[in-house]
């Protein structure tokens, strides 16, 4: 047996986000879903969109340590931007997606200037306040957003000029899946980038980071804007797939739900976003169909049980389980 060279052992001491079997499993599952559960495609598409959204939150919260209860600001901005773009400029979806991302990134940059000056509860409240102000704005700007009735009446052109959105939701599913795969790949790339490590350092000890010469707030702002753009992508997807944008896309429930999904799945691991969104959405859907009035209680019990038995979320549980398997 040869002892590993110090270089390789040091390189291994960096936690790394390589592609692994799990990614393949997830992709396989997504493809299989299309064929096995094609009657559930609307739900499956909604799940994919929420995964994108949860990923964007994981970047801000799990990696940057930015605490937020107002992430819907980005989802909603992306959704409205994409919806308005389709209505007034062009029904082309891919450019609409980018418009949604850009709009959300701008909102992220602006609100980040305020939000990132603070920490803890104050930060949470500021994010909440920013999102609420946007919500009120959308409510007041009724001529533009159609206010409480929801933005409707636009249509989205076929993806790449080839694939028409159909009522069974096949195109929507593939489109959302493609976006998710790209976003996920980007997130992996991002968190294993030097900036990804910097973010973790800032989360752990911002004072020390500053004294290593890192412009902490600027780095966080970058991260926040990226996270916002990804959140905007989720919103834009939703607007394009559903042909309607409601005020609730900016609402507190949206922010709270995605946070619960991420916490359920586990932060700082990317695939926590997958597990959390899938479990939450499926449970919500199933429980809601079985016993609509009491499903909230079932969800509540699940959350408590997860905190008790999987304090680092489902992905943490999975990680512990696989590492134990691995060492045996």
């Amino acid at each position, binding site marked *: 047996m040869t002892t590993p060279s110090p270089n390789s052992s040091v390189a291994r001491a960096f936690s790394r986000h390589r592609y692994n079997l799990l990614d393949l499993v997830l992709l396989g599952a997504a493809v299989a879903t299309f064929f096995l559960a094609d009657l559930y495609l609307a739900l499956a*598409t909604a799940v994919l969109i929420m995964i994108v959204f949860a990923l964007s939150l994981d970047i801000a919260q799990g990696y940057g340590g930015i605490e937020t209860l107002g992430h819907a600001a980005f989802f909603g901005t992306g959704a409205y931007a994409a919806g308005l773009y389709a209505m007034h400029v062009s029904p082309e979806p891919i450019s609409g997606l980018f418009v949604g991302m850009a709009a959300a990134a701008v909102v992220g940059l602006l609100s980040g200037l305020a939000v990132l000056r603070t920490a803890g509860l104050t930060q949470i409240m500021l994010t909440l306040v920013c999102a609420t102000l946007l919500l009120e704005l959308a409510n007041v700007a009724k001529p533009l957003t159609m206010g409480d009735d929801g933005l409707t009446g636009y249509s989205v052109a076929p993806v790449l000029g080839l694939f028409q959105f159909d009522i069974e939701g096949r195109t929507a599913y593939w489109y959302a899946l493609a976006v998710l795969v790209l976003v996920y790949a980007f997130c992996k790339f991002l968190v294993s980038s030097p900036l990804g490590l910097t973010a973790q350092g800032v989360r752990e000890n911002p004072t020390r980071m500053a004294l290593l010469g890192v412009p902490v707030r600027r780095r966080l702002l970058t991260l926040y804007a990226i996270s916002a753009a990804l959140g905007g992508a989720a919103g834009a997807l939703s607007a394009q797939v559903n042909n309607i944008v409601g005020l609730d896309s900016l609402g507190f429930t949206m922010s709270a739900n995605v946070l619960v999904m991420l916490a359920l799945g586990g932060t700082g691991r990317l695939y926590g976003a997958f597990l959390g969104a899938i479990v939450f959405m499926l449970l919500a859907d199933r429980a809601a169909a079985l016993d609509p009035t009491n499903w909230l209680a079932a969800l509540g019990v699940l959350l408590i049980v997860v905190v008790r038995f999987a304090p680092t979320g489902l992905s943490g549980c999975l990680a512990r389980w696989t590492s134990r398997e691995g060492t045996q």
Partner: protein
Amino acid sequence: AEIKVGLLSQFSGAYTWWGREYQRGVDLYLAQRGGKFGEHTITVLSRDEAGSNPQRARQLSQELVVRDKVQYLIGGVFTPTVLGAVDVINQTKTPYVILNSGTSSVTDKSQYYVRAGFTQWTVSIPLVQWAYDQGMKNAVVLAADYAPGHDALEAFGKTFAKLGGKVVGEIKVPMGTTDFSSYLQRVRDLKPQAVFMFMPVGPMSAGMIRSFKERELDKAGITLLVTNEAQEEDIAPIGDAALGLTSALHYSPYLDTPLNKEFVTAYKAKYGKDELPSVASVAAYDGMRLIERMVGATNGVKDGDKAMAAIKDYKWDSPRGPVSIDPRTREIVQNVYMRKVEKIDGKLGNKVFHTYPAVKDPWHEINK
């Protein structure tokens, strides 16, 4: 054969009351028909809209229609959730019986919408008319700051002005307000004879009605006039402060007709002696009647156009009085009652004291 009907409502969250009432109305109707329309067994699939979330409404309607193959949709609590289904019903030609959303314009968005509830305009106009006839010549209109509230402001304001009244103030109250002192102070300063109010039923409307009494605005000679907010279930927590509250609405469980008495008796027998039907359960009850009619006309085979044709001009006797469907707008035509809150058998209830017969939704006329 089996025919499936999708019921969309709020079964969780702050508006569960709607879900319960819809379900009760639907179940009661089906129970009275032995679960069958003709030889077709009816299965109802209930889904939770979970708040005012059009994306979810779209997803649910799509799943119900595409996956579960329902032939009819019924329900809908908020305008956005009703509109969320519009693409789906247009593309699949699925009739959707709207039970609540009070925005008049909704039925214009699709040929397959038909309303079994009411619109805000329908009940607002008689209320304003009545107030004017009582000699109230200046009024404040006060509504929650959201789409239905804006509709109500417009309905009250335009009608009142047209009659020759003077709107001395228009107040928009942000959603979620719990303390009304500032608004009531403003009302007091404006010294109107009447206040027309519209709010989402719940903490807001209850808080407003209670504070109105608490601040003795009634003693200052101001009359509070409402529509939807005076329902029996909602005035109970307000307590005696609600006594004398005047409202216009298309139904009251204390409506003195044989058909309604029968309906109330059946409702109580099924759901408990202290329970009372409401606008929501009666809408669901009548909604099922519409579906029965459509099922009969299509003989259980899905055909949205044929089904919709069958209910145009359909007339029947409902617990709320004689009703019909306007063939042009697919709006329901119904009586509107003026009611006053009184103690009836020791409980607060709405006593009808005046009837405006066969009121058509006026919005479609005005905005033709």
